[in-house]
């Protein structure tokens, strides 16, 4: 198929960016979206131009590197799918496709479609862990049974890939879904409960310090999250947070 692409090009963090038009032909419906970008980049290199920079690594929907805003949607039109798992069969011959970076004040653009998501790391530094040393003599893994229901819910929360689509989608650039998922994972497990309250307090404080916006319950994040992280995680975070600030 033949496509008209409109792609965000920005030379560096301080430079001004703009949308640039590219025409591309011979795209197969079996290609992934990033393979289509590869084809475009090879073409650009062939004509002596700089290829479009974008983050990607696993191309399996698990590392959370890829981050394109496609036709106004984070990771494009297919639900529950990262950019790297999107296939060209979701588009038609002659389509115009807008490709932009995830946008948020807390995620500055580095170059073209590459953004800086280190704010997510700093939120994790502030409490995204259980304080246990590697000694080789923690208790036996089966010493504390965990109800399957809780284990499964913790797992569901833990599947967040840290991509930032939730932030990019939210009109307030809120990171609540991401932070809620991490806080929930630990709050649902006995091992995480000792520090649960402080964790919620500290991570929320860091989230605010990074400049993420507030949650006004539009639920857009849940819709665009490629891993189906549920809004109930935000509710659980709020409970943990309130529990924390009341007793502090």
């Amino acid at each position, binding site marked *: 198929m033949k496509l008209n692409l409109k792609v965000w090009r920005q030379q560096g963090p301080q430079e001004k960016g703009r949308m640039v038009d590219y025409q591309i032909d011979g795209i197969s419906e079996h290609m992934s979206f990033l393979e289509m970008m590869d084809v475009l980049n090879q073409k650009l290199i062939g004509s002596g131009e700089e290829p479009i920079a974008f983050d990607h690594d696993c191309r399996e929907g698990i*590392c959370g590197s890829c981050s394109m805003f496609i036709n106004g949607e984070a990771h494009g039109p297919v639900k529950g799918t990262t950019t790297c798992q999107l296939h060209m069969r979701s588009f038609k011959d002659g389509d115009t496709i807008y490709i932009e970076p995830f946008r948020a004040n807390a995620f500055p653009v580095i170059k073209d479609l590459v953004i800086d998501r280190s704010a997510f790391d700093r939120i994790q530094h502030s409490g995204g862990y259980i304080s246990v040393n590697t000694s080789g003599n*923690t208790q036996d893994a089966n010493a504390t049974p965990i109800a399957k229901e809780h284990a499964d819910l913790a*797992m569901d929360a833990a599947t967040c890939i840290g991509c930032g689509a939730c932030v990019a989608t939210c009109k307030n650039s809120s990171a609540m879904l991401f932070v809620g998922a991490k806080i929930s994972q630990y709050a649902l497990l006995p091992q995480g409960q000792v520090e649960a309250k402080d964790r919620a307090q500290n991570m929320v404080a860091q989230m605010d310090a990074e400049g993420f916006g507030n949650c006004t319950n539009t639920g857009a994040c849940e819709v665009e999250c490629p891993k189906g992280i549920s809004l109930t995680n935000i509710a659980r975070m709020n409970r943990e947070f309130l529990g924390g600030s009341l007793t502090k």
Partner: protein
Amino acid sequence: MSTLDGKTPAGPIKDKWTSYKDKVNLVNPANKRNIDVIVVGTGLAGGSAAATLAEQGYNVKAFCYQDSPRRAHSIAAQGGINAAKNYQGDGDSIYRLFYDTVKGGDYRSREANVHRLAEVSTNIIDQCVAQGVPFARDYGGLLDNRSFGGVLVSRTFYAKGQTGQQLLLGAYSAMNRQIARGKIQMFNRHEMLDIVVIDGKARGIIARNLVTGEIERHSAHAVVLGTGGYGNVFYLSTNAMGSNVTAGWKAHKRGAYFANPCYTQIHPTCIPRSGDYQSKLTLMSESLRNDGRIWVPAKKEDAQAIRDGQLKPTEIKEEDRDYYLERRYPAFGNLVPRDVASRAAKERCDEGYGVNATGEAVYLDFAAAIIRYGKEQATIKGENDASEARIKELGKEIVKAKYGNLFDMYKQIAADNPYETPMMIYPAVHYTMGGIWVDYNLMTTIPGCYAIGEANFSDHGANRLGASALMQGLADGYFVLPYTIGDYLSSDIRTGKISTDSNEFEEAEKNVRERIEKLVSNKGTQSVDYYHRKLGNIMWNKCGMARTEKGLKEAIQEITELRNDFWKNVSVPGGANELNQELEKAGRVADFLELGELFAKDALDRNESCGGHFREEYVEKSGEQQGEALRDDKNFAYVAAWEYTGVPSEAKLHKEQLEFNDIELKQRSYK
């Protein structure tokens, strides 16, 4: 040629690690504060090592090329992690895990390392649960297990189909705690481009800041490489796009021997390639072989009809199907080890029984499992006269609970529904057993330079069993290196800070700058990907699942020519002082173009078939094992460790003789 000492401690195999730990030199906590350690890589191996060393009190500097440690390639591991917990009471033990791993590796690994790995395996599960890793549990709240290939027990722990993700997030969380304490300084989007050796010891690295292009010097008392495997030398593999050999290769050029480069694992169950634009291949976890049955049509006409689109797999009658693994290996059936399963698939496809347009695919079929689970559920639910449709519905629910995310992934990529029709699969490059040579301490032949995880060669011999890489990465990082590195650093407590002003740093930095300059100013005619694809083709066709003397000799020649052409004609747009992904790729491909040559040389030198290394000249010619790999223990029970001399294929061979005192060397039989 000379011999190498693996520095395995004396004593019975069961006691080696315990007595080593009892006697090893320690560094006192106050002195640890004055010692810096560089850890390159934040996958399971590097991440767990960085966190543990920092907990112990060392000052750690950690590096990864992604924008966050959490995105290391380990994140993609699906199926699970082994541990000899024997929670299922099915006869598992440390000895059995040790035995299975040595046998699975086709008797080409170092016994003492493997035993240690089996010993610490149980601690890993305890540690991860304490960190909040949400492993799968049964209704009683206890940990669940599944089976993987090549073994007869159920010892694999898992977190849905995302085990690597959960384990890596566990290690990442342990790192976060140390980053918050200031004990780990994290360098994201940094790539190590050289190692600095001063007075014969590893004392630092040269790294490029991938955002600004700045070249940086970092010093330390020891350097740990947890930089992963080099499967991408084949261009197409299941590895992440950025996985590379650069760190290991630079160490090799500075004196670290490279061991068994030709031992590559080709994984039997991957989604087949669909076209020339293909950028990577996707694994379908081995856990699927617990329930999926592998087959091709028994008649060539049927295979042809399928390829022509005139017949559907579901229309082929039971008696016209060839469940070739069950037929050839009745004892292990669909759960034979990976190398055996991959070769069997290639054999059927080469004979003309392949089932997709390219003729390179076989079926992985869940229909029987769906019926089996469905009947079981109907019985449990008391629905004794459930219809066939109801049974299927119940069965699909179970299959969905077990493999749902893998089925979804398949559906997304192949646009086909595996609940209704069999999956199509084909082998793909997946893992590299070879790597930097290390002794029992995990130290390379450069004193003070360590290699852990997939980057080293030590534990999997010529073939790795499923769910053992995650185990090894975490064993090395959490439980082995933190002991062994102390032994070395205990003599470094009076050294003080290492300066980066020395000639050695100067020289290393100059080398790095010159190479980058050469790449960006070359202004040739071909893209980096053009060379990478060409290299991949040579590797797959001549160094892949079946190798011959003639093919390997040609490969060496062709790779040399391709490398020369690369340096003449490669085009790397953009500059050196900015984010430049083509430049990053160019550096990696340049190193693959050297490694590939050594790889072929190693395969040429090993005149036997073992594990993932299959030489067509060395097969059983008759008897029950006809057509199976023919190992030569008399002449080849050694590790081939190569010393760099300037031309990759003219590397000097050092042999580490492998001794098997606790396991009898046998032909591996899964019949």
